[in-house]
């Protein structure tokens, strides 16, 4: 259970911080160009956080008490592979869910 103070603090500060990130150039910095090295780092911000966030959830899923789970790993691989291949978020999502349910079904049945 998450503490109420934590929730509201995170909502308020994450909201303000995210707004300031979005407002930065449009609102404050204007048309002045950003140093190339800053742009170069910003380009990789999302791809630097999300894979690291999701990796432990794939290898050590909470639902199995942290034990390695083949259907979940297979679903993860399918999601990335199809997303990479088709350049399409929805296609990856569907592929992952199909593999997950087939995998879980097979495991339960065997």
């Amino acid at each position: 259970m998450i503490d109420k103070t934590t929730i509201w603090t995170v909502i308020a500060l994450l909201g303000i911080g995210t707004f300031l990130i979005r407002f930065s150039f449009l609102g404050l910095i204007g048309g002045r160009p950003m140093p190339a090295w800053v742009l170069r780092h910003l380009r990789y911000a999302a791809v630097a956080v999300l894979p690291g966030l999701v990796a432990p959830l794939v290898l050590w899923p909470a639902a199995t008490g942290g034990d390695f789970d083949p259907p979940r790993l297979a679903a993860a691989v399918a999601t990335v592979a199809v997303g990479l291949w088709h350049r399409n978020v929805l296609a990856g999502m569907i592929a992952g869910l199909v593999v997950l349910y087939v995998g879980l079904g097979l495991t339960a049945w065997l």
Partner: protein
Amino acid sequence: MPATTPKSAFWTGFRDGLPFLLVLLPFGILFGVTATEAGLNVLETMMFTIVVIAGASQFTALQLMTDNTPTLIVLATALAVNLRMAMYSASLTPALGGATVWQRGFIAYFLVDATYACAVTRFEAEPDWALPQRTAYFFGTVLAVCPAWYLLTLAGALIGSAIPGWLALDFAVPICFLAMIGPMLRTLAHLAAALTSVTLALVLAFIPYSMGLLIAAVVAMMVGAYVETRTAS
């Protein structure tokens, strides 16, 4: 050819935004469900989605809070997810920077992946558009995606725990993240950053308070930038 009026630009934006609903649909519902399962009530869930309006960082913050991560690290990691929006902001400044400060405030608030993707593509295709057309277009895309984002979250929060366990919803969040990551891996530099992030996050998982993830992210960003300079020349 008749000149585009702001009104018709607005509806062009609305139409361009609609296809993004397909992706928002599972995301919004899932955020509502996940937040409720983590113990947030409907008010907290909705405030979260309305105040922050950035799906990936909302999931990140929620996941870290569930793991009892200190608030400072929750904020730093979730904000890192949103740093890409500084790029969006910079990229739209030549097109929209002339709007009034109030308009720019609202544009900034509604600057999400979908509205940015529409605007940057359309402004490039329609170089003749003046500021009123561009602003109207942007708010057209906003109308298509943003109210739906709130309503889908609400739907998810209300469905909440009614979802049966065999659906293995615990894994729907990782699948959503992974589905976003696939199309992001456009270049060798993106791939290098992603692999660094995964490797370091796993190796550093022993560091308390999810600080390993933050370290992994900073190093991965530097690796991406480095590989870009090496491959570009």
